[in-house]
């Protein structure tokens, strides 16, 4: 922090120097003073206008783009959700009120997709974050080639969903896949990774885990390195073991980071789409819809079955669910900070 302040400091100094010292008080004469006064007034008016309006100018580009490419589609989709619309003719809409939403309520495929989304979300997020935490802990040791390990752990992040899933489909092949072959060498029969409920969900999750663990590791590692050393020292003085130090110093200090990664991963898990789509090669998500997530169900309804109105309703349901999750998370976070403050 200190260094940053230093580097940043000179620049504004230089920039602001002339106006600050420029037309100083030396200027004699009343006319000059009046001129000076006017100029100052003008400048201060301009300054005030600047201070008042510039923030809007800064946020404006974001909101302009957001309005055109984010808000408009969002509202349009909300409107479409109240209609019967077919992809064969998206311009003709028949108003049906809340029918699409009430229909979802009794749509077992929707609930199945929601359940899958939660399950896959859990089995991809929880191990991923735990592994990232453990890995970060290891990388926090003094190591030879620690940079090598960090870069390697991050490499999967550079792979696209499409490329990664295409490889994993082959690796998870039932008859000729590498994974079943490896399991075969230790006497395990071929596993049908594409059709079993748990196996397929695990396989899809593993793609997510593979791509994101290294990334989260670095986040945790960074947070760990920011923990002030005195905390460990005093803990050591109190006779805390390594494990106790991890539990009582590292974990509490990482709490905000962990919370945040949980939120971000939850949002990612809710929107999971590319992996299951490419893993099965279709929007069905397996013969029994074993890994059909909400995103995939939305896609199937809208782009395979051509019911755009219904797809819009699913999209809004997903949106509302995420808001709900965020709300719960916010409540938990507030509880946590409170209890932390109390402790």
């Amino acid at each position, binding site marked *: 922090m200190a*260094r940053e302040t*230093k*580097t940043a400091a000179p620049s504004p100094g230089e920039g602001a120097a002339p106006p600050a010292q420029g037309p100083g008080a030396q200027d004699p004469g009343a006319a000059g003073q009046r001129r000076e006064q006017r100029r100052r007034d003008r400048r201060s008016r301009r300054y005030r206008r600047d201070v008042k309006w510039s923030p809007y100018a800064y946020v404006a580009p974001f909101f302009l783009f957001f309005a055109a490419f984010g808000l408009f589609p969002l509202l349009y989709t909300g409107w479409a959700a109240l209609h*019967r619309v*077919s*992809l*064969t*003719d*998206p*311009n003709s809409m028949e108003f049906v009120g809340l029918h699409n939403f009430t229909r979802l309520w009794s*749509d*077992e*495929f929707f609930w199945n997709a929601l359940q899958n989304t939660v399950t896959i979300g859990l089995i991809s997020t929880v191990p991923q974050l735990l592994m990232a935490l453990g890995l970060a802990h290891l990388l926090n040791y003094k190591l030879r080639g620690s940079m090598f390990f960090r870069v390697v752990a991050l490499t999967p992040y550079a792979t696209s969903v499409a490329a990664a899933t295409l490889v994993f*489909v*082959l690796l998870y*092949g*039932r*008859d*000729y*896949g590498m994974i079943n072959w490896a399991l075969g060498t230790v006497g395990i029969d071929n596993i*049908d990774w*594409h*059709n*079993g409920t748990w196996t397929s969900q695990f396989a899809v999750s593993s793609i997510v885990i593979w791509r994101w663990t290294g990334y989260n590791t670095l986040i945790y590692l960074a947070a760990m390195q920011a923990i002030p050393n005195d905390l460990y020292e005093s803990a050591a003085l109190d006779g805390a073991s390594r494990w106790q130090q991890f539990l009582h110093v590292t974990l509490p200090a990482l709490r905000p980071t962990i919370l945040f990664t949980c939120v971000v991963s939850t949002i990612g898990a809710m929107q999971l789409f590319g992996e299951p789509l490419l893993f099965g*090669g*279709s*929007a*069905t998500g397996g*013969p*029994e*819809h074993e890994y059909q997530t909400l995103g995939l169900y939305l896609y199937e309804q*809208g*782009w*395979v*079955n*051509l019911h755009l109105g219904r797809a819009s309703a699913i999209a809004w349901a997903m949106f509302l669910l995420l808001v709900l999750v965020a709300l719960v998370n916010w409540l938990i976070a507030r509880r946590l900070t409170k209890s932390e403050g109390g402790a």
Partner: protein
Amino acid sequence: MRFRTRTSRQAVVLAAVAALGAGLLAGCAEDKSDEPGGSSGGGEGGDGGKGKTTLTVGVFGTFGLKEAGLYDAYMKANPDVVIKQTSIERNENYYPQLLTHLGSGSGLADIQAVEVNNIAEVTATQADKLVDLGKAPGVDKDNFLDWKWQQGTAQNGSTIALGTDVGPQGICYRKDLFEKAGLPTDRDEVGKLWAGDWKKYLDVGKQYKAKAPKDSAFVDGAGGVMAAVTGSYEERFYDKDGKVVYKESAAVKEAWDVASAFATEGLTAKLQQFKPSWDQAFSNGRFATISCPAWMLGYIKEKGGDKAEGKWDVAQAPKPSNWGGSFLVVPKAGKNTEEAAKLAAWLTAPEQQAVLFEERGSFPSSTAAYDLPAVKDAKNPYFEGAPIGEIFAKAAEGAPVQILGPKDLIIAQNLADVGMLQVDQKGKSPDEGWKAAVKSIDNALDE
């Protein structure tokens, strides 16, 4: 301070690499496509430029027009035309995109392909957005199979889609595996084994299984059997009045029963068609037979490769049957509809259909092509010189004129990839599989 200089140096290096890379790539890209982004600039740009018209053709999967050299031939005969193709591998991704593009009147190729399972929906809902090709120069109704022509004709009488190929079926079989299982290997004898009844095909499967080599199944999967059986009926998923009848239709009933018997008797290799493991199984002799529409021959050849050369042969199917086939349409929103219509007419003319059959195995929908030597006398060396022209022409003649409906694809797909797949790969009872499929289809069809 140190950090700052470091970042800026990094930035410079990164920028240099990016620029260099982009430059190199740009060079390569320009080598390849004559006018980069030319098609995006629209037809007008193309017209104005060197007096050349750029026509784009949008297809799915292995359409074969390009590979058979048809574009090159056309460009040679019409030096002022440049043809480009854009392809999406799976029709299930291609078709929704086509609809989105048609709905907004943009992003369309000058000519678009449509699969037979979607053609009813296209003629019913998109006819006003497509050019009437029936009156285009060079199109002759009498060249086409009558039913193929009707399928591409909308209610208002305009023929908006021209047929390319049809999918008459045979049964492809591995001679080496048949021999090991003590079955005849000559294609006529093999055909006689099951002639006339799909249940006989099932019986041969049982015989095969009794003496089959280890690790080999009789068919690839139950889904293919179901498609083949369904294809031998006139009424499949819809009746003549456009009512959805798949729950009662004789076609679906027999197809479901036969196919699920294959699954429950353990005669399948439990493979799902068009998935990587299915691809891989071709070269390994994992299964002895497969329902073989004409277009499947090219597939077997590519997938089987050298390893399976000379091992496959093709025999007549139990009943004449049709699976698949496609059409070409010309969207009105295109910039060169006139030129596009000309090209579409040319591509679907008998001579070109014959070339497509010769090169790619897509069987002509043009009856006029059947008498051309390229079709009539066609033999396929990969399949031991099987007289494929004769075999498939016979199947095409006997194949029923199917009644199509707008949701054919969804019904077929859910029956195969939800219902039958559960029976075949998850060991569900046929009853459970059927219920699951029906539930899925009901959900999809529900307005």
